[in-house]
């Protein structure tokens, strides 16, 4: 499984010289499975560049939306494969009692916010509510679970070839709770993240910023670190950077995060801040041989 970060920013695109290294595009992660299937995790502005990189391939791809805040869907109408008649796109997302996934997305892909309507997209597009149980996409098994954020929001876990990716970009697991005091099953998202090969998790705020943003649906650094430690993932990436955080600020946050990570017992080098266009190759593991009878 290959993973590439196409957009690491949260809330609003933040291009400019101050954000050129960590990136200014909003949430999008490209995943290529071991059988060649392509997934896009979220469709923030980063998905525009993913679409350009895909060229004419593949004929079928899946977009897994965590939720429908604008920074996670804004790139949909600038995703080149959506404008190719030969492409089939399946968009997965959270159910809501209010309206179907298609109708909720159509509020954005419609006038006056968009020059095209969903029905006008040349590709063969379909919308599916994520099931409660695990399902298959290509060579992967995919699981979605509701996580603590504002509005219906999912996190995802993708298992493929013995490796696993957990993706929880917008997450406030410590809202009204002390993560250190909770049992595992009472921590939002932990079931998705536990023992993942790679965990991509919300890291929006520095600790000093969090008191002014309680309940906004995002984590302070302390929460991100505590969650990652409880998850025991092999590697963790802090993601969804606040638009106010310049590269210099994030450099400082990265140093603090690494120091505190190791103080918590984390493996050196196993936690980092997400950088746009960075890639991760999650190795395929051979199934463990059965013990002799």
């Amino acid at each position, binding site marked *: 499984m290959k993973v590439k970060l196409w957009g690491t920013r949260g809330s609003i695109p933040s291009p400019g010289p101050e954000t050129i290294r960590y990136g200014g595009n909003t949430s999008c992660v490209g995943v290529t499975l071991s059988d060649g299937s392509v997934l896009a995790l979220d469709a923030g502005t980063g998905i525009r560049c993913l679409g350009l990189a895909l060229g004419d391939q593949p004929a079928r791809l899946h977009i897994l939306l965590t939720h429908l805040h604008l920074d996670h869907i804004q790139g949909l109408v600038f995703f080149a494969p959506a404008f190719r008649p030969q492409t089939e796109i399946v968009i997965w997302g959270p159910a809501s009692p209010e309206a179907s996934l298609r109708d909720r997305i159509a509020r954005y892909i419609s006038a006056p916010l968009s020059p095209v309507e969903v029905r006008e997209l040349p590709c063969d597009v379909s919308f599916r509510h994520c099931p409660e149980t695990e399902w298959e996409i290509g060579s992967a098994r995919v699981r979605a679970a509701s996580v603590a954020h504002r509005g219906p929001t999912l996190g995802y876990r993708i298992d493929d070839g013995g490796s696993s990716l957990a993706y929880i970009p917008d997450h406030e697991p410590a809202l009204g709770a002390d993560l250190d005091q909770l049992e595992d099953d009472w921590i939002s998202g932990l*079931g998705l993240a*536990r023992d993942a090969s790679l965990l991509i998790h919300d890291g929006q705020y520095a600790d000093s910023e969090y008191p002014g943003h309680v309940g906004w649906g995002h984590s302070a650094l302390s929460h991100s670190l505590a969650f990652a430690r409880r998850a025991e993932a092999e590697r963790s990436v802090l993601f969804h950077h606040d638009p106010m955080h310049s590269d210099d600020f994030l450099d400082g946050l990265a140093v603090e995060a690494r120091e505190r990570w190791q103080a918590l017992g984390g493996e050196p080098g196993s936690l980092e801040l997400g950088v746009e266009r960075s890639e991760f190759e999650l190795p395929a593991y051979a199934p463990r041989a059965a013990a002799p009878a």
Partner: protein
Amino acid sequence: MSFVTQKPLELILARNLMSALSTPAFLVDEGGVLVFYNEAAGMMLGKRFEELGTVEADEWGQLFGPFDEGGEPIPYDDLPLVAAVRDGRPAHSELEIHSADGTSHQVEVSAFPILTAHGSQGGIAIFWPTGASGNGANPA
């Protein structure tokens, strides 16, 4: 590798909210298992949740021996929280409960189900003390 089955998010958020309340409150899952009560409820019952842990559906009612206005024990199936989860609608009643040290409390209980897009995930009961506490004797 250890597998974690996350509780439904609605229960997690309900527990977090209840933890911040000074009003006694119970939380049960979709099977009626008592999965949490807050500190205020612990003070009323005379036992913290951390001391007790989860309690099976047909057992937690016996923790506080609820009695009706006439002093008769209230059957488990008639408890407001049980009715709320079973019927998917709010339930309310007045009852008397006994804490671990034998103190009796007159309370009103409001219970409501936690309904989600995936169906019922459990229910919450909030206890409203209405009268003076007394030590003791089972009014029955």
